[in-house]
């Protein structure tokens, strides 16, 4: 489908890329190959056409801004369902067939799986990329570098810092103090129950929320020492979070409607659930899921484990990664940087898909500093901007998260219907995750 001239130039550059890859892979271990690394990210001569696969609705309009200004680097958008809905599977197929796009949309929790399969280009060789480090909120850089020197496997795009949405009107009417710690949250839950509601809905099948809560508490699920993975869903902090929610579930202080269903929307719309500890994009979920409650919500920082604490969790967020098969990592990185740091792109992304930027300056976009009518005119994004600075940088995801989520979710579903405990479910999920890693020949530290 490509014009013959292009095929020829690809052939030539690919021969070049192979030799370069050979050099840089040799220098990975010593990490002293600055010179070869720099040439691995050299600009192409002549015009470049990049392909970019993402599922952000309305992305074409954003990319058009770039294409209009960069006739030499034209970006073609491809789209599809969200990552776990099929696009990640497609990426793996395309990597195998050698026709993966240059750039792909990859959520933070999926990045390690692509890295383990050696599907990503290390952008640390691109000086523009390493120079942009300080533009991003610290923890997002940790997500794309995996906390290692000399590695950047994607450009942070959006984030989901967490805070607490709550029904201000109901809390005031029933004279319940706004909880600032998790202990107060339990106390409030009892009062809410007495007033005929539930303080929140426990997410039984979307484990990412629980991951965000553990992240805040200091739980660390995965680590990699360079050769082996350590899997631990039973560190003290994660245990603490699991015990905490187990208590609320056992006392029936929380409801457990399956998330992202109409039933779930209704629980919020009808005032059965009074708070939701969720990510910044949750603002939009409530707005459209619970339209009758307009003006009644407000946002506060998420409850803390110690009084006066300042830590937050993160739920969701994604990066723009450059695939290993890309012939033009320099141009791809340049586009990804523009897409995720320039004011015009971030404004357009926020407008098109409510993406909350991963850059420090992104928090000051006009759209993110205004009051939101649905939340009684509160400048809710300021709460999330603060939360974003309070997210710990060293939380790492495993290479088989889809699988981990699935087994944890099986356990959690059983818990809300009265079988077992959250910690037992996590233990089982840990065992199953280790089994999966081993079955894929990924080394695990025992």
């Amino acid at each position, binding site marked *: *489908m*490509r014009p013959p001239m292009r095929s020829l130039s690809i052939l030539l550059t690919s021969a070049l890329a192979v030799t370069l890859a050979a050099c840089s892979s040799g220098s990975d271990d010593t990490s002293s190959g600055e010179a070869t690394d720099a040439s691995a990210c050299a600009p192409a001569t002549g015009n470049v056409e990049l*392909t970019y*696969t993402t*599922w952000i*609705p*309305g992305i074409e309009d954003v990319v058009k801004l770039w294409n209009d200004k960069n006739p030499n680097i034209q970006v073609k958008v*491809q*789209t*599809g*369902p*969200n990552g*776990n*809905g*099929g696009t990640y*599977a*497609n990426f793996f*197929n*395309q990597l*195998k*067939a*050698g*026709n993966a*796009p240059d750039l792909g949309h990859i959520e933070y929790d999926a990045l390690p799986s692509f890295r383990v399969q050696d599907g990503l280009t290390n952008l640390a060789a691109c000086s523009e990329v390493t120079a942009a480090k300080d533009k991003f909120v610290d923890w997002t850089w940790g997500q794309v570098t995996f906390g290692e020197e000399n590695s950047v496997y994607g450009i942070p795009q959006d984030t989901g810092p967490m805070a607490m949405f709550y029904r201000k009107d109901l809390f005031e009417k029933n004279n319940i103090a706004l909880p600032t710690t998790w202990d107060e949250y339990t106390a409030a839950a009892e009062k809410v129950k007495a007033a005929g509601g539930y303080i929140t809905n426990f997410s039984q099948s979307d484990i990412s929320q629980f991951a965000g809560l553990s992240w805040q508490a200091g739980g660390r699920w995965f680590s990699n020492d360079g050769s082996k993975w350590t899997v631990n869903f039973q560190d003290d902090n994660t245990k603490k979070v699991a015990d905490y929610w187990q208590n609320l579930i056992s006392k029936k202080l929380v409801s457990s409607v399956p998330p*992202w269903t*109409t039933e779930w*929307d*209704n629980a919020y*719309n009808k005032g059965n659930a009074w708070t939701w500890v969720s990510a910044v*994009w949750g603002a*939009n*979920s409530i*707005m*459209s*899921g*619970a*339209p*009758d409650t307009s003006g009644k919500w407000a946002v506060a920082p998420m409850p803390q484990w110690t009084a006066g604490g300042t830590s937050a969790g993160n739920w969701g967020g994604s990066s723009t990664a450059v695939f290993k098969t890309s012939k033009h990592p320099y141009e791809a990185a340049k586009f990804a940087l523009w897409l995720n740091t320039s004011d015009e792109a971030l404004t357009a992304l926020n407008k098109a*898909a*409510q993406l909350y930027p991963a850059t420090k300056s992104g928090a000051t976009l006009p759209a993110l500093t205004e009051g939101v009518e649905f939340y009684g005119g509160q400048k809710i994004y300021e709460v999330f901007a603060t939360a974003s600075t309070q997210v710990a940088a060293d939380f790492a995801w495993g290479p088989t998260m889809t699988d981990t989520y699935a087994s944890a979710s099986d356990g959690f579903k059983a818990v809300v219907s009265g079988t077992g405990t959250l910690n037992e479910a996590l233990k089982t999920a840990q065992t199953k995750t280790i089994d999966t890693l081993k079955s894929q020949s990924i080394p695990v530290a025992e």
Partner: protein
Amino acid sequence: MKNVNRIGPMVVMGAATLYFLVPIWWLLVAASKSRAQFNNTTPLWFADFSLGDNLGELFAYRDGVFLRWMLNSVLYTGGAALIGTVLAAMCGYALAKYRFPGREAIFNVVLSGVLVPATALALPLFLIFSQFEATNTFWSVFLPSLVNPFGVYLARIYATASVPDELLEASRLDGSGEIRTFFTISSKLMFPALVTIFLFHFVAVWNNFLLPLIMLGNERLFPVTLGLYSWNTQVNQIPELRMFVLTGALVSIVPLVIAFLFLQRFWRNGLGSGAIK
């Protein structure tokens, strides 16, 4: 006693009908509600009827990409079913009416093709099309959809039963070529079977989801099933899409309903006339 005999089956059929129609009824009702009322009103009865608004919004969303998907589906499905039916008919007819070495072997291979699910072929097809740099094109979905082993099987069975050898000999004596005989005489005799094959093929291609999912990245090439699925995976973060998915799902079954209602007539006529013979 006679009544009892009739009541039993009627109850079973009634229950089955209800079972199949309730989801469609729900879809119709849901698609007719405004976003706010969708959450608030009883799911199986109408609130304010705003199907028109929903349709308008759906068709206008993202420059009418939904209409494009519908058109794609009709092209993929209609085209593939039409050509696929002709291919299956010719193949089945040849296997039924001509004697040549290896006939049974070919038929057995085709028959074993019936047992291989289309889903299992999607990934190998992707790798093959990748070799030709032909993924993410109209043809990458259209070409694999053309073949239909079950249609060949059906055509062979029906041709054996409904096309008399004497008739073929008579037409040969009258100087008609084999191809002309097939299109002017045999295909007419096989018509009821062809309608059946067409309908089966139409539904199979319309519902084939995995192949376009794996092959296509260009939104303008999506069939409606893949498009709606893509939207549905984004409902968590873009909740407005839920109403589009519902309304779109309703619209997307319309062509299937039309195909069935329209072709059912031929179908019954054919079966009836076959029975009288």
